C-alpha cells in the first residue's frame, strides 16, 4: 500500500520515510497507520468474539446439554460480550476516528501522536490477558460481561484478577484515545472550520469522547473495588462488612448506560455522512442533529437505574428513571426523522454503504422501540433477564453499531485503499447479512416474551424450534462475514481505481485529497469556504 502512495504522490514522497516491515507498525505515530491497526484489530476481535457466539448458538441449537459444560458456556457469554463491546465495536470506532477526523477537519494528524501509538498498542495486551484467562484452571470470567457482585467477588474464580487488569488496560486505552480526539478537534481544526461546519461524524465523536472521559474511569473504579473486595478484604459490595451488592449495580450502570451511547453516537455520525451522499442532498436539520446528540449524551447520565427496576426501587425512583429513559426517544426520533427527510425526494442510489445505512435506520429503530418497551417499569419485570433483552441490545449493537461500522468501511474503503471494492460481492454480503441477522435476532423477542431466560445453557422444550431457527441464523450471519473479509482483501490488493471524490454526491474535506489518501494530508491547512 505504501508503495502505491509514493508512486502517486511525488510531492509528499520525501515525508514518507518510515521504518520498514513490522517496525513501521510498532513505531508509527501516523493517524492513518494507527487507524488501520485499530480497524484490523477490531475485525480480528469481531471474529474471535463471533466464534464464541457460534459456540453459544451451537449449544443452544437443541435443548439439553450438547457440546460444552455450563461453566464454559458462561465463560463464552461473558467473554463474547466483553470482546464485542471493548474489543470490536469501540476500537473500530476509534480506528474510524483516527483515520477520518484529521482529514475531515483539515488537520495534518492527531494532536497527540505518541499517545495515539500507546493507546493502540496496549490494547492487544489487554485482550491477550483476557483470552489467556480462559485457559487457567477453573476457566476465565464466567459472571457475565456486567460482572455483578457477588458473582464476581464471592463466587468468581482466580481468573478475576486477570479480568480486572485487562479491563483497566482497555479503559486506559479508551481514555487516551478520547483525550486525543478532543484535543485534535479543539486545537487542530483548519481555519474557517467553525463548530457548526464540522461534519457530524466529528461532532458525534467529540461528544462520545467526552462520555468516555466521564465514565471509563468509573468502570475502572468498579473493577478496582471488585479486585479489592475479592483479594484484599474490603467490603464495598459485601453486606457482611457493611457494603451493599446493589451499590455495585449503581456504579456499574452509571458507567454502563453512557457506554451504550458511546457505542451508538459515532454510528449516528456515520449514517449522517452516508445518507446525504447517496441521496445527493445536504443533511436535513444539521443543527438539530448536533443538539439531539448532545441531549442524548446528557440524558444518558440520568437513566442508569432502568437496568435495575427489579432490584426493588421506590415508585418515585422507578417513575423518574422510566420517564427519563422514554425522553431519550425524542432526540433519537429527531435523528431518524432527519435521515428520512434527507432522503425525501433525493436522487437516491443504492450502493453497499447506503444499503447498510438504510438497514441501520430501520433495524436500529426496531431496537429503539424494544428499548422503549423495556423502559416501562411494570412491563420490565416480565422482560428482565430474558431473551427479549438479548434481542433488544443485539438489534441496537449488531444491526446498529456493527452495521454502521460496516457501512463506514464500505464508504471510506476506496479512500483508504485507492481501489473500488467489488460492488457485487458487497451486495451479496449485505443481503446475506440482512436476512441472517433478522433470522438470528428477531425470534429472540418471542422466546424472551415467552419467558426464556438469558445466560442459561439449557432451556425448556417449548423453545426448541425457535432456538433452532435462531442458531441457523447465527451460523449464516457468521458465515456471511467471511464474504466481507474476502472483499476487504480483494479491495486492498487491487481493483478499479477510485477517484478523489469516489462517490458522486460526496462532500467534505476527506474527498478532496487523492485516493488512496497520501501518508500525510493537509500539512498546510486547507481553505474552508
Amino acid at each position, binding site marked *: 500500500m505504501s508503495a502505491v502512495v509514493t508512486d502517486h504522490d511525488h510531492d509528499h514522497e520525501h515525508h514518507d520515510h518510515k521504518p520498514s516491515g513490522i517496525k513501521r507498525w510498532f513505531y508509527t505515530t501516523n493517524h492513518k497507520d494507527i487507524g488501520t491497526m485499530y480497524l484490523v484489530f477490531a475485525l480480528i476481535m469481531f471474529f474471535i468474539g463471533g466464534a464464541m457466539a457460534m459456540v453459544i448458538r451451537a449449544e443452544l441449537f437443541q435443548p439439553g446439554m450438547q457440546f460444552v459444560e455450563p461453566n464454559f458456556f458462561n465463560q463464552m457469554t461473558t467473554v463474547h460480550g466483553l470482546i464485542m463491546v471493548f474489543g470490536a465495536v469501540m476500537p473500530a470506532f476509534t480506528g474510524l476516528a483516527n483515520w477520518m477526523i484529521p482529514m475531515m477537519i483539515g488537520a495534518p494528524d492527531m494532536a497527540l501522536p505518541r499517545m495515539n501509538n500507546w493507546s493502540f498498542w496496549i490494547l492487544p495486551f489487554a485482550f491477550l490477558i483476557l483470552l489467556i484467562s480462559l485457559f487457567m484452571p477453573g476457566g476465565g470470567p464466567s459472571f457475565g460481561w456486567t460482572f455483578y457482585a457477588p458473582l464476581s467477588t464471592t463466587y468468581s474464580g482466580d481468573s478475576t484478577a486477570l479480568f480486572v487488569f485487562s479491563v483497566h488496560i482497555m479503559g486506559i486505552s479508551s481514555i487516551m484515545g478520547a*483525550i486525543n480526539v478532543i484535543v485534535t478537534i479543539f486545537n487542530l481544526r483548519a481555519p474557517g472550520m467553525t463548530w457548526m461546519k464540522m461534519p457530524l461524524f466529528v461532532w458525534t465523536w467529540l461528544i462520545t469522547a467526552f462520555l468516555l472521559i466521564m465514565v471509563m474511569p*468509573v468502570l475502572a473504579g468498579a473493577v478496582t473495588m471488585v479486585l479489592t473486595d475479592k483479594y484484599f478484604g474490603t467490603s464495598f459490595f459485601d453486606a*457482611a462488612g457493611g457494603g451493599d451488592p*446493589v451499590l455495585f449495580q449503581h456504579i456499574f450502570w452509571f458507567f454502563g448506560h453512557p457506554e451504550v451511547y458511546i457505542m451508538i453516537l459515532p454510528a449516528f455520525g456515520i449514517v449522517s455522512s452516508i445518507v446525504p451522499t447517496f441521496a445527493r442532498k445536504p443533511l436535513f436539520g444539521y443543527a438539530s442533529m448536533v443538539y439531539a446528540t448532545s441531549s442524548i449524551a446528557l440524558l444518558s447520565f440520568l437513566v442508569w437505574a432502568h437496568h435495575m427496576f427489579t432490584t426493588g426501587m421506590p415508585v418515585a425512583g422507578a417513575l423518574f428513571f422510566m420517564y427519563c429513559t422514554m425522553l431519550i426517544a425524542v432526540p433519537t426520533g429527531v435523528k431518524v426523522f432527519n435521515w428520512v427527510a434527507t432522503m425525501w425526494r433525493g436522487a437516491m442510489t443504492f450502493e453497499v454503504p447506503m444499503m447498510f445505512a438504510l438497514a441501520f435506520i430501520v433495524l436500529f429503530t426496531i431496537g429503539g422501540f424494544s428499548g422503549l418497551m423495556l423502559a416501562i417499569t411494570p412491563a420490565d419485570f416480565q422482560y428482565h433477564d430474558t431473551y427479549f433483552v438479548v434481542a433488544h441490545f443485539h438489534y441496537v449493537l449488531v444491526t446498529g453499531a456493527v452495521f454502521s461500522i460496516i457501512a463506514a468501511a464500505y464508504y471510506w474503503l476506496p479512500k483508504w485503499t485507492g481501489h473500488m471494492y467489488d460492488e457485487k460481492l458487497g451486495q451479496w454480503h449485505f443481503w446475506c447479512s440482512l436476512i441472517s441477522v433478522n433470522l438470528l435476532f428477531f425470534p429472540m423477542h418471542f422466546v424472551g416474551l415467552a419467558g426464556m431466560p438469558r445466560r442459561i445453557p439449557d432451556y425448556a422444550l417449548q423453545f426448541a424450534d425457535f432456538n433452532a431457527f435462531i442458531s441457523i441464523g447465527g451460523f449464516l450471519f457468521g458465515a456471511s462475514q467471511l464474504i466481507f473479509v474476502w472483499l476487504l482483501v480483494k479491495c486492498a490488493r487491487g481493483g478499479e481505481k477510485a477517484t478523489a471524490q469516489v462517490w458522486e454526491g460526496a462532500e467534505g474535506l476527506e474527498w478532496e485529497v487523492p485516493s488512496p489518501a497520501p501518508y500525510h494530508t493537509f500539512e498546510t491547512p486547507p481553505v474552508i469556504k
Partner: protein
Amino acid sequence: MALKHKPLTFKLAVTALAMFGFGFALVPLYDVFCDLTGLNGKTAVTAASAEAAQIDISREIVIEFIARPNKQMPWLFEPEVRRMTVHPGEIHIMNYLAQNPTSRMIVGQAVPSVSPGQAALYFHKIECFCFTQQKLAGGKDMLMPLQFYVDPALPSQFSTITLSYTLYDVTSAWTGDSAESSQPGE
C-alpha cells in the same frame, strides 16, 4: 507534545482522574442517600430513643421475621416467632435463638434488612443484638433480644413489614470490645 495542546490535555487527564475518584465517592454518597431516604431497606445501626410515640390502636401492622445464617456461618439462628401483629407505637420484645453447634468459639454479626425498603425509615430498634458483634462459645446457645416499635407515621399503604437478618461469621475480624453485650444462654 506541541505546547498548545498541553493545557487542554492536562485538563482532560485531570477530569478522568476526578471521575475515577467520583466512582469511589459514589460509595459514601450511596450510603448517605439511602440513610436519608431509607431506600435500600437499611435500618439505623444505632438505638432509637425508648420514648415511643403515641400508640395508634386503630391500625394493625404485621411484622414478619426472617433469620438466616450466611453460607459460611455454622450457627443455627432462628426467631422465636415467625410473625407478630402490632399497633404502631407499641414497644415489643422479640427474641432470636442462636446456637453454636461447633466446638470452637465463633463471633457473629447480624445485618438487618427491611422490606419494603421504604418502610425501613419507620422501623425503630431500641435495642438490638445487631448493634454489636455476638460471641458464642462452641456447643452453647443463647437468646438474642430485639426491642422495637413501628413509627405511627408509617404511610398507610404499608400493612406488612418483613425484617430479615443475615448472620455473618466475623470471628477473624473480632476485636473483643463487644463481648460484654452477649448474653449467656440457659
